[in-house]
């Protein structure tokens, strides 16, 4: 194994948890990841020793808290190689980030006769905000279809992009594990005069991200999927775009001037951070970034490729045609997220039996109903791994599936 997973696991208290005297096998990291001690401790320590409101008061404690908060912003900016930390907006989750994009950029730029391009493998967070706005503004939503092997079918991309103002797509499917050619897709968008908006929820936690190298215009992701706390998400966007966008939420902290007649807004990034931000959570996200940097995102990716390989073989060798994995077979082209059908057993029942073995997988539509319809399933079971996952988790999954066979 590339990573010293045993040492990593020791830093995650949840992974030491036992239920009914047996260890848990957490295979739901695409949904949300566990938190290492350093993140939990950074949050507690800040609340015990450094807590103060930020950006508003000027006493020493408040100044130090503001500096810690802005320091975390710098860490996040570096983590994705943003040009400037002014380009990093803290939201409550990636979903808010996408709604911000739709309501601010979209409302200002999309009207009747305009079009945006999404793909069939989007998460609801990159579908519903656009549908809500389209209902009001009347622009068209187009869709990139899938190939039979669960990739995006980019053969007609140039045609689909014709007249499109924004191409918004996921860099990695949360259902199929498919990793999309983000750099090429950004380039195609630009060639067509569209901006490229990347839903990075599933890729940012699992591989190195360089927004400049990708050529993206915007990137949304969530802290809670990358070892960080809940309650904070990120929207990165190129400064010129953010400068031109109207504010999204109004309130304290985002204004420059307010009178009875109207308001003017503050500079970036504050313009988009109305109200008291998730101060403690941003500090926690900073600690998560430090933690991931300490391990190395390339090492994380390599580990997950190895584990993907291991899992793929273990599952198919044991179960053959009884298991159908919805997703690319080449581990280099996918993340460590496996959606599967097991014989004709309903995923809810699969997950129930697995749960009896402390194997935690998600069963459902994974917030990607249009994709599920394409797959032809109402639901799938999904096992998803992270830097702390190892062969024992895979083995437990394989073993427990045997029990599904014996009950159903």
């Amino acid at each position: 194994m590339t990573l010293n997973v045993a040492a990593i696991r020791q830093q995650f208290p949840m992974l030491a948890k036992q239920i009914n005297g047996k260890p848990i096998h957490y295979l739901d990291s695409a949904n949300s990841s566990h938190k290492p001690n350093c993140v939990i401790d950074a949050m507690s320590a800040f609340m015990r020793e450094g807590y103060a409101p930020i950006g508003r008061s000027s006493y020493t404690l408040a100044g130090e808290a503001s500096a810690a908060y802005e320091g975390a912003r710098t860490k996040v900016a570096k983590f994705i190689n943003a040009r400037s930390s002014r380009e990093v907006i803290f939201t409550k989750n990636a979903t808010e980030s996408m709604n911000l994009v739709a309501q601010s950029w979209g409302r200002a730029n999309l009207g009747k006769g305009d079009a945006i391009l999404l793909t069939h493998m989007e998460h609801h967070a990159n579908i519903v905000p656009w549908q809500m706005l389209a209902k009001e503004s009347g622009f068209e939503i187009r869709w990139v279809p899938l190939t039979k092997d669960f990739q995006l079918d980019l053969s007609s991309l140039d045609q689909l992009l014709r007249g499109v103002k924004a191409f918004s797509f996921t860099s990695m499917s949360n259902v199929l594990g498919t990793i999309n050619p983000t750099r090429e897709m950004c380039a195609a968008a630009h060639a067509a005069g569209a901006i490229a908006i990347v839903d990075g929820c599933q890729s940012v936690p699992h591989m190195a991200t360089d927004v400049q190298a990708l050529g993206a215009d915007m990137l949304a992701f969530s802290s809670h999927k990358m070892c960080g706390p809940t309650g904070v998400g990120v929207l990165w966007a190129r400064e010129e775009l953010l400068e031109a966008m109207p504010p999204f939420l109004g309130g304290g902290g985002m204004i420059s001037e307010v009178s009875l007649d109207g308001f003017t807004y503050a500079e970036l990034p504050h313009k988009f951070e109305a109200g008291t931000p998730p101060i403690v959570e941003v500090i926690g996200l900073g600690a998560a970034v430090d933690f991931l940097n300490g391990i190395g995102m390339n090492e994380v990716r390599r580990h997950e490729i190895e584990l993907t390989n291991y899992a793929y073989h273990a599952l198919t060798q044991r179960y053959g045609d009884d298991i159908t994995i919805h997703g690319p077979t080449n581990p280099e082209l996918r993340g460590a997220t496996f959606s599967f059908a097991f014989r004709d057993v309903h995923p809810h029942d699969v997950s129930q039996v697995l749960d009896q073995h402390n194997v935690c997988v998600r069963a459902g539509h994974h917030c990607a109903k249009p994709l599920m319809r394409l797959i032809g399933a109402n639901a799938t079971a999904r096992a998803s791994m992270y830097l702390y996952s190892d062969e024992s988790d895979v083995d437990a999954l394989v073993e427990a599936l045997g029990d599904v066979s014996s009950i159903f």
Partner: protein
Amino acid sequence: MSNLEDLYREVILDHYRTPRNRGELPPPATCTEGTNPLCGDEIKIFLNVIDGIVQDVRFSGHGCSISQASASMMTAIVKGKSLADVRAVARRFKQLMTIEEDDGTTPADIRLGDIEALQGVVKYPVRIKCAVLGWNTLLQGLNSTDA
């Protein structure tokens, strides 16, 4: 896995494998749809009510063993019952699922029979929604029939 036997009792698996009253009914039967947003399960309940009596009932859709078995058992028990009795059975069932309290108003002679086997679901709170999906959809159907 001894514990799961509580959930997946033989009678439940039997209704799951060989569902009763699975299918559709043509109009004038009513059709009511229900979904469980959590897992994507969908169910349709077809109802033929004449003179306040459930003359016929069918269900279709997809779902897990619990939702399918529960719907199957439900159709078996409500067929031929008066609307008042169906409502009483539904209430008793929801009491069994611990989502309604027993306030003593359900007639004592209302029995659930086989359906009692679903009691094991209560230990798995996330599955309660599966078990009641068909029932809630039925009640919705009755309400629109009444109106």
